[in-house]
């Protein structure tokens, strides 16, 4: 009896039709979210800073009119994760049991592409959840070149900033950008509690990491190389400690590998099919022999 119920539950979650329905619902939910986010940006921006559970209890709970879609998204993604795991595991089990191993392993590996993609989706979702739930965020820290250092939490060291080689826009294609810094040329120096130092470049596209923290350049002043020494001279840093980032980045890479395997499988099958058709077409007709 219990086995029967378990099997029925398993079969329910293994349904590919359920995947289709869930994906259409997710598509609809996220499409309808666009105007709600656009009109209420200030509700959603803190999501990355305060963590998902705190956000759901505060911003989410008290603005249900325009955050309900996010709660629905969470439920649908949970269902999709269960469905993906059960469905992919069942299909993989069938493939490994029924595969004709004498056909060679290359074909089997390519056929694993869709399964790799499905498991990658699970890894990505897990990574996102970890990133939004467990990461530590220290927003709004400012530094001035050769000024006072900022200290990392729990006495994990301190940071100082210096300005070395700024790169100025020299394209002369967009007049507005003349004399603007493309790369402000900052160098971030980390000193641990033993006094050991390490320096790394900091720019919009370069986010160095020290002691498990990653440092993002949020803004900087001055924006332009005007030649004078007056005015604002500081940067805004966003600091994050997010080990889950490696999980979702791994998942993204895994998905792309799976997609490549799937595309290669389709390509090889089409090639085989067309060469078979060609061989058939060029085969001599028996009556002509």
């Amino acid at each position, binding site marked *: 009896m219990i086995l029967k119920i378990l099997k029925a539950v398993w079969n329910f979650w293994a349904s*590919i*039709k359920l*995947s*289709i329905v869930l*994906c*259409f619902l*997710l*598509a*609809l939910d*996220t*499409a309808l*979210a*666009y*105007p709600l*986010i*656009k009109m209420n*940006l200030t509700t*959603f*921006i803190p*999501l*990355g800073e305060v963590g998902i559970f705190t956000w759901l209890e505060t911003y989410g709970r008290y603005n249900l009119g325009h955050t309900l879609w996010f709660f629905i998204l969470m439920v649908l993604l949970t269902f999709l994760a269960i469905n993906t795991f059960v469905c992919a595991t069942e299909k993989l089990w069938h493939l490994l049991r029924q595969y004709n191993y004498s056909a060679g392993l290359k074909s089997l590996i390519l056929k694993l592409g869709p399964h790799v993609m499905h498991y990658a989706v699970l890894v990505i979702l897990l*990574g*996102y959840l970890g*990133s939004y739930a467990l990461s530590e*965020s220290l927003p709004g820290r400012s530094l001035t070149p050769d000024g006072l250092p900022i200290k990392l939490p729990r006495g994990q060291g301190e940071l100082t900033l210096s300005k070395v080689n700024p790169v100025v826009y020299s*394209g002369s*294609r*967009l007049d*507005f*950008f003349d004399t*603007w810094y*493309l790369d402000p040329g900052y160098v971030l120096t980390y000193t641990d509690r033993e006094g050991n130092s390490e320096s790394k470049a900091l720019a*919009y*596209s370069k*986010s160095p990491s020290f002691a498990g923290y*990653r440092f*993002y350049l949020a803004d900087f002043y001055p924006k332009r190389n005007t030649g004078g020494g007056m005015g604002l001279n500081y940067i805004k840093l*966003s600091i*994050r400690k*997010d080990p889950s*980032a490696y999980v*979702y*980045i791994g998942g*993204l890479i895994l*998905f*792309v590998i799976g*997609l490549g395997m*799937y*595309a290669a499988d*389709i390509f090889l099958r*089409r090639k085989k099919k067309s060469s078979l058709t060609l061989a058939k077409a060029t085969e001599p007709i028996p009556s002509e022999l």
Partner: protein
Amino acid sequence: MDENFLYKVAEIILLVSVAFSFTRKTLVLSQVLFGLYLPLGLWYIGIRYWLALPMTPMFMGTAGVPPFLALFGALYWKRFSGEGLFFYRSLLILTFIIGLEHVFFPKDFYLPFLKTATFFSQCHLLFTLLGKAALFISGLHALDFLLAGKTGADSPPGRFFLWLVIGFTFWTLCMFSGEAWSYLGWGLPVVWDDAVIVTFMATWFFYIALLHLHLAGGFSARSRAYFSTFGCLWVIVVNCLPDMGPFRVPTLF
């Protein structure tokens, strides 16, 4: 040359090409004009990139689609005069309609911003353009299968499925490069400062559902074709309309 002038000239050429495609006598002329449109459209994209580099041009996610759509469609140029005529006409019309967005509702007054001067940002835009164009081609083949089927379909289900896979691959790469850019620039996979982020997710989920419809079995080729055709409308509404700026009466100069 001013890139917007170039775009409008290309759009006029395309309009004449559409008109000429409806009579057999002027079909060749229509194809010649289509051949002229293609380099002009790609030139426009080249100018936008050249102006913005090393940053990424802003709000080109729809304006840059028609040239790529025409480029992918041109892969079937040998069939344009024969069985692929319906596909050719619908390709011209869709390319023209999407181009109208930039002519009447341009959003070209935004300067690029410094955080877009990264490899992943460039990849994100390029894959967006390629993805949208490939998904439109899939929809056009599906439409061809549905409407021109009785008079000699040139688009078997395998063809719109193939473009679906190509489009989905580009779309996935566009999403993932966007996430990599977001992680390197802000430390988060999804930055909520721009609502457009959810429209990318919406289309990704829509096409995952569509791929499963093709792979699940039990769904007829016609029902799959209806969904693929609906995909064109979906991408226009969900991914192209948010790129629209305020209405402006177009002028050539």
